[in-house]
């Protein structure tokens, strides 16, 4: 996620001190990975230099963290452009799990085991997120739902692949992993 543009969005809502920006960012978007103060001030320095933010006031006797920042007209234009621009969807074509399944088949291991172990791991995380949702507010629920839908997509792929292992083995010219089972 672009920290700079997120800061711009927060500053468009209202001018803030650096420490306040960090607090709001961590609370809304950090998800357990808070920003370092170094990141906060280097980002603000860059935005200042580009003319996207300006110092709106300095409190008496203050160090650098007591400066209040406000967005400029150029900053508003920049954040508007960023918000309007779609995020590039991931293609997910570099897939470690697929590689593991292929290598499992090529080396004569049980590829279904690889998929089952992964399914269990995915569901373990999904249960944890579902519990977090139950205890959380709407923001927590939306963040967790985003993760849950993505994990569910992975699991659908795992199921589909499990049903196609015999076909995949045939294309790799290795013996079918389940010779007693007909290919669906």
């Amino acid at each position, binding site marked *: 996620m672009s920290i700079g543009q997120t800061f711009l969005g927060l500053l468009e809502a209202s001018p803030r001190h650096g420490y306040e920006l960090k607090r709001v960012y961590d609370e809304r978007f950090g998800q357990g990975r808070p920003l370092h103060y170094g990141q906060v001030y280097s980002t603000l320095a860059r935005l200042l230099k580009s003319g996207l933010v300006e110092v709106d006031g300095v409190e008496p006797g203050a160090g650098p963290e007591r400066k209040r920042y406000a967005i400029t007209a150029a900053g508003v234009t920049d954040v508007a452009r960023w918000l309007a621009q779609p995020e590039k969807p991931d293609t997910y074509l570099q897939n470690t799990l697929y590689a593991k399944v292929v290598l499992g088949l090529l080396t004569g291991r049980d590829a279904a085991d690889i998929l*089952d172990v992964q*399914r*269990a791991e995915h*569901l373990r995380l*999904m249960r944890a*997120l*579902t519990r977090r949702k139950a205890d959380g507010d709407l923001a927590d629920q939306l963040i967790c739902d985003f993760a849950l839908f993505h*994990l*569910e997509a992975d699991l659908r792929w795992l*199921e589909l692949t499990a049903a196609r292992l015999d076909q995949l083995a045939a294309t790799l010219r290795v013996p079918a992993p389940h010779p007693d089972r007909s290919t669906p």
Partner: protein
Amino acid sequence: MTSPTPADDRPLLSAVDLHKAYGSTPALDGATLHLRAGEIVAVMGASGSGKSTLLHCLAGIVPPDAGQVHYRDRELSAMSDAERSALRRTEFGFVFQFGQLVPELSCLENVALPLRLGGTRRRVAEQRAAEWLGRLEVTEVAGHRPGEVSGGQGQRVAVARALVTAPRVLFADEPTGALDSLNGEQVMRLLTEAARHTGAAVVLVTHEPRVAAYADREIVVRDGRTRETVLAER
């Protein structure tokens, strides 16, 4: 209201090496499942994997061709039909994908029905039914018939009806299968909260991972065989 006995770790309901075929089509081919009191187990698998057949065997709705199902200390196949019916009425609750409410009765009367069939007086039965509609957050539909409520409301009424008799085991077969994501989430949240409140164990058949994530653990059924992939975390 019944509660699980924490010291008793024996399964409440057990199925061991079940086999079942419909004609020449095998549905179960060595399925095993142990359900402890108060736990929620998701039974997952693709369409046609045998997961609904497993539920039907566990609930004594269809007999397995081979293998055994025990509820507490009794084997289901050793019971008479009348005993199995009584077990399903008093100890088990059921929620299906749809079509389980009596269309001619109001939602309140639907929830009160299992109690009325068990001999509870109307006034008491309807008072308890109203409490359950409140717990499932559908008080406003009490006087409506099932055809007049939304799919999500109807499923919540069905959950209330399944739990009003405080069953030891709730069988839920794709309970959110006909609902959109948001309504499905609501039904699952309320179903699991209500089951935990009463101490009912739940067998939750689903092909949806997000629904299975409400359970304590999952059993995967593939080609009629079960594969427990995760131990209970509780």
